[in-house]
């Protein structure tokens, strides 16, 4: 499988799974933000073309 090492982060609300905006920044920033907002981080590993 081809790996283009594309990654995106999403802060997942603890209560609902409604449409969310993807987080723009580094993984560590995303984790820090998740911690402060009591959320989880979704890391999507996918292959690009």
């Amino acid at each position: 499988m081809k790996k283009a090492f594309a990654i995106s982060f999403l802060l997942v609300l603890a209560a609902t799974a409604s449409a969310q905006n993807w987080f723009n920044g580094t993984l560590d920033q995303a984790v820090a933000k998740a911690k402060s907002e009591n959320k989880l981080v979704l890391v999507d590993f996918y292959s690009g073309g």
Partner: protein
Amino acid sequence: MADNGEPAGDAIFKRFAIQSTPTTLVLGGDGAEVDWFVGYRPPPESFQAKLEKILKGEGTFKALQAAYAASPKDVASIFGLARKWEARDNTTKAQEKYREVIALDPEGKAGSYTDENSWVTASYTEFARLLLATANLWSPNPNPAPVKAFIAQYPKSRLVKVAYMKMSNHYVSGASKEEADKFFSEYTARFPDDPVAAAMWLARVIRDNGPAEKAVELADRLRELSAFVPDPRISQMIARAYDLSGDKDKTEAMYGMTFMQDRVDTLASNLAAYADYWAEKKENLESAAAMAETAARIKPGDPYFIRRVANVYCVAGQEAKALEVYGPDWLERSSPGLAAQDIRNYATFWLRQGKNLDSALAAAKRAVELEPRTYYHWTTLSDIYAKMGNKPEAIKAAERAVELADTKSKASMQKKLEALRGSAPVKK
């Protein structure tokens, strides 16, 4: 989004030892892994359902780890952790956990697991032993001996069949011809009714380009085993076997135009049946509509399948869409090629919906025009007039239906007519 601000995206792949994509990994606010899943399969709702399960903390890696920490001898949690690591292709960690399962519960009494591919249920320990035994089958130097040892240890296990199936890949492409012959003789003798056993052996014979007699023998057997549920992959192998023997007629009969047209027809019927099933339950309607549309696409011009699409849209309350695919425009466009029965079906469909009645009436009139001596076309016409409140015309058409009805239907037609005559005038 994407790897903005994260130029070394591959560093994150390495950090979490991600082996394949797509992988969805959920982290907690402490940066620790909460859970993950590998692969994506539509519909998106099932992806969402998985995420919601994670949000609830059901069966997650984190939950299993917590259960394990609380009771380190809980075999179910350990096995669960092993499956999580295996899903992520982390063989080392998976094997470590499988070994723990075996050490804690050598007799396999702690509980059982159902595999989601084979649907076989067996004890955690049996699964752990088999998964450890098969681990090296995909290594550069595959060794089937541990799997054979598993079969010897659990001769009556439901997993024996799975064990043979897993080994068969090696014997199709890895082992010598002699070893393969020996293995497949044993496999097919043990599971004579298993099409997989015969198909894998045939795959090997085709790979070796013969012997043709063996290929034909296996092909004939496979034909019998897959007669009720023909599988195009198996049919192609059977055709290849007949190619080896030079029997063109049999190849054509097995895998020619008729075979594939039958598969297409069967697929269309299955898609329509699926759409009807969910429409009846008034659930899963988006998928039902999509599948009905697929059926209509692969059987273009067949009114039956277009009607299935319209039916789902009506059930979903999307009448405009139903009219778009199966409304007056459709009728006008298709009319020249339609049989009277198809036109009547259009009329009864909309009569049942109680919508689009003007067009339904026009269709019913057209049906009686085409086949004026078929009583049930007149019945439909009468029903539509009645629904529209035009009692005199409804009675006229019903009288004609009584006149033409066969002896079996005459009585019920007569009853219908009398009801029409006797009923209070219907207001328009």
